[in-house]
């Protein structure tokens, strides 16, 4: 078992701060600062040598679970390998050093990359307009639903304020609808994981602004009624929003535009190569059809003859406006651009094929071990749902216990307890970048855990055993969040 790494404050030794850098006397500039705004005591900063600091943070980083160190089948998150080349090109000094207010004439190279990215995303998704501006998936959703609202408002159809959301949706969908001033109509899915069409027909009407749909859904299955859903929603005067969370599964195979979606957001960081999972940075580019094109956020990169320029409110008078200070998260956009250019059209199709093949291989092997599929009659898309309901009932072990035990075998846990409607579930997404050997090792670990559940249950219930910390107190962490460190030796020494 790894030992606990002390905090940087515990590594602190009085006097190890870089005293050479301290001001020798009160700087003249401080003379005007009123006494009441001045610190009474020195800041409570740790004092450690450069080598101690390097070792401390290197050790911490080695305890992290990451794609670069571990298989990370976190369902719905598409934790695939991000080629280092994408990062390398995005970090070229010519990109990094460019000031965001530099004139377009001085940044034609960057604008050309972003323009080409817009064009490629249009062609991959089958949409007619793309804006790269939103800085995360949630902001992409916000842009999408804002455009749907702007469209209805522009037509004077003020009654359309309801967004239909299937119960299997990402939690962000109802949150987005609410943020955009809409009310949410939740509809169920049927026993096979498809949207309940009767419930959809009953939910739509003159108040329907649109539907938000993820396809393949968070249940890991392709929505087979999509043609009928499109007829029902468009027939009622609503629009169709495509949540691009699972775009990885259909790249180069099925286009949301061909499924007749009006608007889509793409999580570029997920599908197109930026390390993610720690809360950002992301990029939630949006794509639209002709109907919503006038409402796109700005800026967008335009091309006049051979020159690129920013399109703004003067070009799109009906735009919903700016969603970031400048161009969005340009670094993420550049990584996506490099990734897409490296793959090409053929490579993108293989992403979808291998993501689906890996998921179905893993699915079949886990079912052969005796695990229950949440939707046994369906083939997996790029991810699949296992339910441990039976194990919970018979042995009183939970999905969380299995997830924690997997850490001991060197695997990041799959997504647990999502979607909420499936009890004791694990949502498993292996992605296209894992080898068969890695998937087999994961199956072997699950097999051992299933044996332990029957023969050595406490081993599972008390996992993890080999990590620096055991079970964390989630409840206390949620209720008594305390992020301050009480007192530091360094502060004491300086004060003394």
């Amino acid at each position: 078992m790894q030992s606990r790494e002390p905090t940087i404050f515990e590594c602190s030794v009085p006097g190890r701060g870089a005293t050479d850098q301290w001001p020798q006397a009160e700087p003249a500039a401080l003379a005007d600062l009123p006494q009441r705004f001045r610190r009474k005591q020195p800041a409570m900063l740790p004092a450690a040598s450069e080598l101690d600091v390097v070792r401390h943070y290197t050790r911490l980083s080695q305890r992290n679970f990451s794609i670069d160190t571990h298989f990370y089948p976190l369902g719905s998150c598409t934790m695939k390998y991000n080629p280092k080349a994408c990062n390398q090109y995005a970090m070229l000094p010519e990109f990094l050093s460019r000031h965001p207010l530099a004139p377009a004439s001085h940044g034609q190279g960057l604008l050309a990359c972003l323009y080409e990215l817009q064009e490629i995303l249009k062609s991959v998704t089958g949409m007619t307009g793309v804006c790269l501006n939103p800085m995360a998936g949630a902001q992409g959703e916000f842009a999408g639903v804002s455009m749907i609202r702007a469209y209805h408002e522009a037509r004077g159809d003020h009654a359309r304020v309801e967004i239909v959301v299937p119960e299997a949706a990402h939690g962000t969908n109802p949150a987005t609808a609410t943020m955009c001033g809409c009310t949410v109509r939740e509809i169920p899915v049927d026993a096979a994981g498809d949207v309940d069409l009767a419930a959809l027909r009953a939910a739509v009407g003159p108040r329907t602004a649109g539907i938000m749909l993820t396809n393949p859904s968070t249940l890991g299955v392709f929505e087979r009624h999509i043609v009928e859903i499109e007829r029902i929603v468009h027939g009622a005067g609503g629009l169709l929003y495509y949540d691009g969370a699972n775009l990885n599964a259909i790249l180069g195979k099925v286009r949301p535009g061909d499924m007749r979606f009006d608007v889509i957001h793409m999580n570029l960081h997920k599908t197109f190569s930026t390390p993610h999972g720690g809360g950002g940075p992301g990029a939630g580019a949006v794509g639209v059809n002709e109907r919503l094109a006038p409402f796109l956020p700005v800026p967008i990169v335009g091309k006049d003859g051979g020159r690129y320029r920013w399109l703004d409110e003067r070009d799109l008078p009906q735009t919903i406006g700016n969603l970031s200070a400048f161009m969005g998260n340009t670094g993420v956009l550049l990584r996506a651009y490099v990734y897409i250019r490296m793959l090409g059209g053929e490579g993108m199709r293989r992403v979808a094929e291998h993501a689906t093949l890996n998921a179905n291989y893993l699915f079949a092997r886990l079912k052969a071990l005796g695990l229950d599929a949440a939707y046994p009659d369906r083939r997996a898309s790029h991810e699949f749902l296992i339910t441990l309901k039976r194990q919970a009932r018979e042995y009183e072990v939970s999905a969380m216990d299995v997830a924690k035990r997997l850490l001991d075998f060197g695997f990041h846990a799959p997504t647990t307890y999502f979607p909420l409607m499936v009890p004791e579930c694990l949502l498993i997404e292996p992605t296209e970048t894992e080898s068969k050997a890695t998937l087999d090792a994961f199956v072997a670990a699950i097999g051992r855990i299933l044996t332990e559940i029957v023969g050595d249950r406490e081993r599972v219930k008390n996992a993890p055993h080999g990590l620096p910390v055991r079970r964390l107190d989630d409840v206390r962490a949620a209720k008594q969040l305390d992020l301050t460190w009480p007192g530091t030796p360094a502060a004491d020494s300086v004060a003394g």
Partner: protein
Amino acid sequence: MTSVPSQLEYTAAHEWIRRLPDGVVEMGITDHAQHALGDLVFVELPEIGRVLEAGEACAVVESVKSASDVYAPVSGEVIARNTALEQTPETINQDPYHAGWMLRVRLAPGAAAAAVLSAAEYQTLLDTEGG
């Protein structure tokens, strides 16, 4: 085995109601619901005086796993709410049918409870769901 007291009524969305005198009902979430949610860390209750429509989302319970809406099992006006839950939401985990009550609602005139199940019917529902 989760507890389903026979003197209470239930909804398919896992709320319970207890009929009190003078057309007032008390409500909360069932033992099955608290068990499925796990340790609760946050409860949001409607204001007193709010008029609820049966089936409408009227409260939120949040656990370390998820946040869920609680739906009004009856139409009527909120006349009392268990504000102690805001400090100690775990009471719902410990005692869902008594100390963990959430709201008292005065039934709207002529309002019947929406699709309420008996204890036996609710038990059947739980058995079917296999929870």
